[in-house]
């Protein structure tokens, strides 16, 4: 089976920490959001400073770590929101 390609977007202080606003990551076909998270934190260890407060969304919806990812999914990674 082929690997899947997932786009990752970084926002706000997570973008500053990653020094980029997006990237594309290749994952095994059965990968979950948790697998992607591990891969992102390995590539950008600066993001670890946010600890468990880092939020993750898949295709513009908050998602649980066990959510399976699919080819062409868009994952967003950001710190706690502060709008209003």
């Amino acid at each position, binding site marked *: 089976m082929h690997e899947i390609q997932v786009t990752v977007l970084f926002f706000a202080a997570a973008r500053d920490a990653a020094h980029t606003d997006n990237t594309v990551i290749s994952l095994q076909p059965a990968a979950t959001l948790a697998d992607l998270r591990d891969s992102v934190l390995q590539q950008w260890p600066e993001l670890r400073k946010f600890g468990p407060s880092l939020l993750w969304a898949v295709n513009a919806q908050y998602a649980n*770590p066990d959510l399976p990812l699919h080819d062409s999914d868009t994952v*967003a990674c950001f*710190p706690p*929101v*502060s*709008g*209003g």
Partner: protein
Amino acid sequence: MIELTDQPLDFHSLSEYVRSDAAGAVVVFLGTVREFTRGIQTQALEYTAYHEMARQSLQQLETEVRQRFPVIEVGILHRVGALKLGDVSVAIAVSTPHRAEAFAAGQWLIDTLKLRVPIWKKECFSDGREEWQHPGITSNSPPPDFPPAAASNELNINSDGSQPQPPAKDLPA
């Protein structure tokens, strides 16, 4: 009615939009850029959003507030980009048959917006520093007698005044 825009918010039109012969009450909430936070002078704010998700999230708030309260009409406007002192960053208006429901619905909307909608603000202080605002760091402490909004008990307002995390059901662990 949902709007995410880099233009000044037309909250006067918004309050006219929610008025209705079926309503006895209208509540309008405006969030404005405050000069002093913890004694430090703010010069400007920069709001940034994950636009696609923020629009969906605001739309979801409109759907959900109608399920929770007897809302007749509702509108939410949020601004992005550079804001000056006194500028309106968010405007919420809601109409209901009776007044208690209008206050509860308005408060639920702004409390929940601040928990969920992917928008972030960076404060630009007069000493030149810039700082992303995060809940728990900004700590706009509500007064000790802060009344939790009706039907929002899952929001878990923290007793120390820090802002709660989004509801667990929306969240990665």
